[in-house]
């Protein structure tokens, strides 16, 4: 770790600590109307009539008839309406919005509206739906031959559930009509230009008539990648229709129930083994996409590319489908499809190893990819794969191997222990050629006459530290104090489109562009002059071109890596697990700020443990999610994983700033494999097949074992 990694006080530390930071809920003007969404109470129905009572003066009801432009939200495939069309497709879908000055009156009006529905069949089970939004296939080698020649074939199904991002600040957007027919939107968001594209389209306005700014944002974790576009269109339509500022902020229940979550999955693994080695995998990945496509295409792409894990499997057939159901559209959550397939492949590898009588770690390392090997999409691992060293580093701090042997002995008491290990990667940046073909990032550095340098990018800080990271890079290259670098919350009127803040791309891609821009500015620096430097994305030349048509080529330029170990103790009387230790080794390249990266790793790791263990959320047969409060949707506290240790391992990426690569998502990808391996060991080597694995599941498993 070089000088760049030394930690500084986060840029937003004092404003957030003192309460001075302005979130969208903090604007106090008296002329802001409160907007509340009329949510569908039916998961699938024809909308016959919306009976709106007579409205008091100053109160408004808007719906699809008020959309001046296209009533479709621009995300990937634009099939989600701003306000419901003739049908509603999930519980919570926005039918309309009530706006007015007094919140309780708005709520009163909302409750007085009568919606007449005509029921249509509700589908909540992916296996019973006949609509696949997306259907992709990856092939490699000769799968038929491998299965024909196999000594043994394993087939198992793994299921994963919803997971909600549970950012501290719920979704919130505000729209303001401005002079000359302009519309200004701001709020809690990750991707200002995504919102701009969606809102201009819904309002039927040219680019220059709309601008989007980010307010201080209390967490995103992917949840504010697409939803602010949807909510932005809704408040935008309301502001234009009423001629007033309109702000809509979700309550926690509304947010938990009606905004995008991680895709639940149903993954079938058929694995061929010959001479003690996995020779082929035939994988069928099914993601519950929910009612509209939103981000499912890209989440699914990443999910299936990871389906063989970190293992070199010469013959592959991976089919991935995102299925339509009448549940809330699934979306982005830190990890973006990876957690679902990684837990599945880690578990199937465990089960096969145990069946073959080999230690899972030994079995996995035997299959580990290395530099130069080909990826699932016949691309290449261009750089070192540090997993072996990371395993050793982790083993030194937590005694994995020793404890694994110890807990393998028969345990008879009330409390039983287990330890598990998982290994994963996260492909850094957009999948395939997205950066080159769609994003085409542009960054600017503006130097004023007094020597202050302003970073002009559309990337957002939502707590993850970008407002600190980016100035550190620019300050270092310009050899200026950090205080001389300005980086404000972006407004699309002033910043170029440097792309969205997603896909663990910002530091690696945008940070590198800023680094290049700063180098040029330094070379061209003229005291007392105003200067503007602009840099454009350049696709790394070493990449094997990626084709989405046949899933061939380099899906990612490089990979971040992790090894996780979970040690736990299960109370066989109550089924409750207690995590005794969570140990993570992470390679995100050079950390641009050590404290920020360690904080990111700890937080993501805890989310990942929550995903495996307690974050249970499900839609019932009517399509309703009932786990819509923090007493029903359980996320872990620090008390649940008091002993959580993170270490960093660094393999530098030459195309990232100072060797940095993707960091944000990695820690949220890997814990479930380790967690479940530990649970399986504590339950005496039973094969398990789903997460979250709750206390109730533990007792059921024990009961079944007793019956056998």
């Amino acid at each position, binding site marked *: 770790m070089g000088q760049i990694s030394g930690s500084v006080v986060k840029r937003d530390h004092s404003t957030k600590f003192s309460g001075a930071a302005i979130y969208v809920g903090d604007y106090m003007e008296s002329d802001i109307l409160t907007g509340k969404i009329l949510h569908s109470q039916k998961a699938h129905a024809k909308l016959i009539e919306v009976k709106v009572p007579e409205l008091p003066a100053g109160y408004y009801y808007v719906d699809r008839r008020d959309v001046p432009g296209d009533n479709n939200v621009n995300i990937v495939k634009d099939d989600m309406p701003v306000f419901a069309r003739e049908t509603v497709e999930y519980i919570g879908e926005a039918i309309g919005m009530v706006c007015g000055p007094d919140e*309780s009156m708005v709520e009163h009006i909302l409750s007085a509206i009568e919606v007449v529905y005509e029921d249509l069949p509700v589908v909540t089970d992916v296996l019973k739906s006949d609509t696949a939004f997306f259907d992709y296939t990856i092939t490699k080698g000769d799968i038929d031959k491998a299965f024909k020649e196999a000594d043994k074939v394993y087939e198992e199904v793994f299921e994963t559930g919803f997971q909600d991002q549970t950012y501290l600040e719920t979704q919130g957007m505000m729209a303001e009509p401005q002079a000359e027919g302009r519309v200004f939107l701001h709020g809690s968001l990750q991707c200002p230009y995504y919102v701009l594209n969606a809102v201009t389209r819904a309002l039927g306005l040219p680019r220059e008539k709309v601008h989007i700014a980010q307010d201080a944002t209390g967490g995103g974790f992917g949840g504010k990648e697409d939803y602010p576009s949807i909510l932005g269109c809704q408040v935008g339509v309301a502001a234009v229709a009423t001629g007033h500022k309109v702000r809509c902020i979700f309550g926690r229940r509304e947010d938990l129930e009606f905004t995008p979550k991680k895709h639940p999955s149903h993954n079938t693994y058929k694995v061929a083994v010959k001479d003690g080695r996995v020779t082929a995998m035939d994988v069928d990945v099914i993601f519950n996409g929910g009612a509209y496509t939103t981000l499912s295409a890209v989440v699914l792409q990443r999910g299936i590319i990871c389906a063989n894990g970190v293992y070199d499997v010469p013959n592959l057939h991976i089919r991935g489908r995102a299925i339509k159901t009448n549940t809330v559209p699934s979306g982005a959550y830190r990890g973006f499809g990876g957690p679902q397939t990684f837990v599945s492949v880690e578990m199937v590898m465990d089960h096969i190893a145990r069946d073959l009588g080999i230690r899972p770690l030994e079995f996995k390392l035997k299959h580990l990819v290395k530099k130069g090997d080909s990826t699932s999409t016949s691309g290449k691992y261009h750089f070192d794969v540090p997993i072996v060293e990371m395993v050793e580093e982790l083993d030194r701090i937590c005694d994995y191997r020793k404890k694994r042997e110890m807990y393998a002995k028969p345990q008879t008491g*009330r409390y039983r222990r287990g330890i598990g290990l998982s290994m994963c990667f996260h492909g850094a940046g957009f999948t395939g050629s997205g950066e080159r073909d769609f994003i085409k990032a542009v960054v600017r550095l503006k130097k004023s006459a007094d020597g202050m340098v302003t970073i002009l990018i559309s990337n957002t800080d939502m707590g993850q530290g970008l407002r600190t990271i980016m100035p550190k890079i620019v300050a270092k290259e310009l050899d200026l104090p950090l205080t001389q670098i300005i980086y404000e919350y972006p407004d699309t009127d002033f910043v170029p489109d440097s792309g969205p803040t997603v896909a663990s791309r910002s530091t690696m891609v945008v940070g590198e562009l800023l680094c290049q821009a700063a180098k040029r500015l330094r070379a061209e620096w003229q005291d007392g002059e105003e200067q503007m430097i602009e840099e454009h994305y350049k696709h790394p030349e070493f990449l094997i071109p990626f084709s989405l048509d046949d899933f061939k080529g380099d899906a990612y330029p490089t990979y971040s890596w992790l090894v996780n170990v979970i040690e736990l103790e299960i109370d066989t*009387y*109550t*089924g*409750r697990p*207690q995590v005794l230790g969570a140990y993570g080794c992470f390679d995100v390249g050079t950390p641009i700020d050590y404290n920020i990266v360690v904080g990111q790793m700890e937080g993501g790791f805890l989310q990942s443990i929550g995903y495996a263990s*307690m974050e249970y959320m499900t839609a019932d047969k009517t399509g309703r999610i009932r786990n819509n409060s*923090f*007493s*029903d949707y*359980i996320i*872990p*506290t*620090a*008390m*649940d994983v008091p002993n959580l240790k993170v270490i960093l391992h660094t393999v530098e990426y030459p195309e990232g700033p100072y060797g940095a690569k993707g960091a944000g998502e990695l820690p949220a990808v890997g814990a479930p494999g380790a967690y479940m391996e530990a649970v399986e060991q504590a339950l005496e080597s039973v094969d398990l097949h789903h997460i979250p694995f709750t*206390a*109730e599941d533990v*007792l059921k498993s024990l*009961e079944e074992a007793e019956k056998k």
Partner: protein
Amino acid sequence: MVNGYMPLSLKEALELRAAHELVPYGGGTDLMIEGEKDVCYLFVNKIAEMKKIVDDGQYLRIGASCTFTEVLDSPLVPQLMKEAVSRIAAPAIRNAGTMAGNIGNGSAKADSVLIEYVAGAKLRLVSVRGERVVPIEAFYKGRKELDLAKDELIVEILLPRTGLENYFYQKVGARNALAISRLSFAGVLHLEDGVIRDIAVAFGAVANTVLRFRDIEHMLIGKTIAEAKKERAAFIAAYDAAINPTRGRVSAEYRKAVCLNLLRAFLDDKGI
């Protein structure tokens, strides 16, 4: 905007309670969540008579407005009560939430109420009309149904001074902090010269009120440990028949299984 009265004496509080339609407000940790706008509160957390913890020679009297933190800090409060109270929510909530609030909320999941059941605690209820002392089991008439007149306040909790030393307690929540009980168990055994003088078993969060079955407990009272051991199977079977858990955040089957597991663990722990 919150409307309410903040009396500084019990007398004043009772007069206000009798004269107006008021919702007693201790720490507000339950009421704030409900956030009702059209109610008027009677803030009872500044009343000195309701903030004391004293041993009067007959009972340990815990003032109704004592916060959970104050209970934890008191040298007089028995360890069993402290164990249960220490598992309520998180420090910030324990600093605000009160003993009477835990009772008055009317939930079978209330962690301190389980201990009041197993201790056979009584509540001192006072109004301008006078006062009465009611056993906790009689006070809870059903889910959210309390034997509390509109002009009455819970002023004190009366715990027996001894008898809670030999206990077995477990809270089962969905996580280790900020967790509503999915099930809770407390068992107390009082032995004299090898004979069971008293045994009490209570289950929280499985039905509309905390459950305690005195008739089942009587199966073991007056027996030696050796005699009790012979009754063990019948004793467990009696609870198996008596407990019919409600389905909630977890299934009824899970609740039942864990109730019986913890009952067995209690008996194991006490050598029965």
